[in-house]
């Protein structure tokens, strides 16, 4: 397993409160790493620090070679990674295709050209929303808006994709489709780091898992080593059992006994 980059000894304080405490996390290259934890654990903050959107109080980012990750301005960061935050309504109602092309700002000088249009249409096609290209963004459903935000990231050529809860607004069919798209990107050699809440989808989605709770890293590593009932119980306080589906997949079953009593 090759490491793409690492966040080392990251601590973050906001208004005197420690929200991330000495977190060290290595992100494996060409894999899907899922960051999990209860609400308010610090997942989004950690993603922002790893995406260079937020400067930590302490700690540093290191590249694969063990040297500090020296990226200067926003453009250099944008060439290194794409970041998809939670979706939001826009003040001006741009067309979907225009918004997706904006994701390639760091790749072109001035205005987007034919290459940007082609890459943007391809990203929309991958996500199965090419038919929405001329629709206005604000007229779309939350789920469709999320897909457009993801398409904007995919349209870029950056080797690292960081997504903050990309499945949150998607129906089950769209979730499965997005999982496939992310897997295809990994096969192309890109690295995906995302935060997620749904424990049940981890067996089919993740290669590596990192658990975070109250701003501290509980465990991180390959899914087989980390995504185990004892750690899940430690982080989320729920009892789970791993089962084997007749077709071979691993399934997660929540023990409902505590709740039934």
């Amino acid at each position: 397993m090759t490491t793409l980059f690492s966040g080392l000894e990251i601590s973050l304080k906001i208004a005197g409160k420690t929200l991330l405490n000495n977190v060290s996390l290595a992100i494996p290259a060409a894999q899907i790493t899922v960051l999990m934890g209860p609400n308010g654990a610090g997942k989004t903050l950690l993603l922002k620090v790893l995406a260079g959107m937020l400067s930590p109080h302490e700690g540093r980012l290191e590249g694969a070679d063990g040297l500090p990750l020296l990226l200067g301005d926003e453009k250099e960061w944008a060439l290194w990674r794409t970041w998809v935050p939670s979706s939001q309504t826009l003040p001006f109602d741009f067309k979907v295709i225009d918004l997706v092309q904006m994701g390639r700002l760091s790749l072109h000088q001035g205005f987007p050209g034919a290459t940007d249009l082609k890459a943007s249409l391809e990203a929309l096609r991958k996500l199965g929303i090419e038919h929405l290209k001329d629709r206005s963004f604000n007229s779309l459903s939350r789920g469709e808006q999320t897909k457009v935000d993801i398409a904007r990231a995919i349209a870029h050529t950056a080797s690292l994709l960081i997504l903050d809860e990309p499945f949150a607004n998607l129906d089950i069919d769209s979730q499965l489709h997005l999982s496939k798209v992310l897997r295809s990107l990994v096969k192309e050699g890109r690295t995906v780091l995302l935060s997620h809440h749904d424990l049940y989808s981890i067996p089919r989605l993740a290669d590596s898992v990192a658990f975070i709770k109250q701003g501290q890293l509980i465990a991180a590593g390959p899914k087989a080593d980390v995504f185990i009932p004892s750690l899940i119980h430690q982080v989320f306080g729920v009892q789970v059992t791993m089962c084997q589906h007749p077709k071979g997949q691993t399934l997660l079953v929540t023990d409902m006994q505590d709740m039934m009593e």
Partner: protein
Amino acid sequence: MNRVQSHAGLCVALFVLSFFLCWSFGGIEAYPWELLHPSHQSQSYILLFIRLPRIVCACLVGAALGAAGVLTQGLFRNPLASPSLLGISSGGVLGACLALFLGFESWNNWLHPLCAFLGCFLSLLCVLSMSRRIQAYATEDLLLIGFALNGILSAASSLLLSIALHEPNKSASIMNWMLGTLSGKTWNHNMFAVLPIAIALLAAWRLAYPLNVLALGAENACSVGLNIATVRRQGMLVIALLVTVSVTLGGLLPFVGLIVPHVSRLLVGPDHRKLLPLSALNGATLVMSSDLVARTLIAPLEIQVGALISLFGSPFFLWLYFQERRKTQR
């Protein structure tokens, strides 16, 4: 021809029509075609040295305010924002009022616009110094700074007016400036304004696509590689330059920078690359046409064009607002 092109064509036609109407009508009968066979020298003089410079001045002021409105709304990601929110217009008006109050006009004709110019730039410096750590400030903070500054400067202008009330000439002049007027503008005024406005419009054009990206929100825009602090600083400087020149020429015309971008956006959509030139054109048409009404409605008396624009602009804007609301509720 698509929808955007046909709307843009309509705006160009409206501009040309307004231009010829404005050139043809005024307090005294004189028509542009009479220049081909001039019968009275006074008519040529009125057409070329009184009416035409005033129309060109209206176009420059309107174009500057239209473009400044687009930039302000784009920069603050708010379709209801206006350049006067930054307090720069009020700074210019205060400078002009101060010049009138102290009687600088009697020393030199250029001192008056120069004071307006200084007022704009001092208020800009105030905004810039307060938002020096611009990266740490949210857009809302900047709006609040502008709002507070605007309030202080407007109050100072009103104070000057109230002190000057016992001198009818001074108070009338201050009132003119506060309400906005294009009366008495000459080719000299236009020569002073055309270069800074051209430079500012070119700079605004360079900011058009970054402003599109900024519409994604600060976090999204930053993540795709936009240097937000630079765009904000450049945007503010361009807005300041445009508003400075327009205030120096025509006084306070607060509604143009608010309503023109809004209407233009309904016609060509939110893309700033189309919106900026169209808003400049529509701003010119609006100020030029309003000035025609202002100088002909109760001729030979004139209405202050700023007051007139506010009078019909406010209900029009409210109508548009409710149309938008109805559309989103469907």
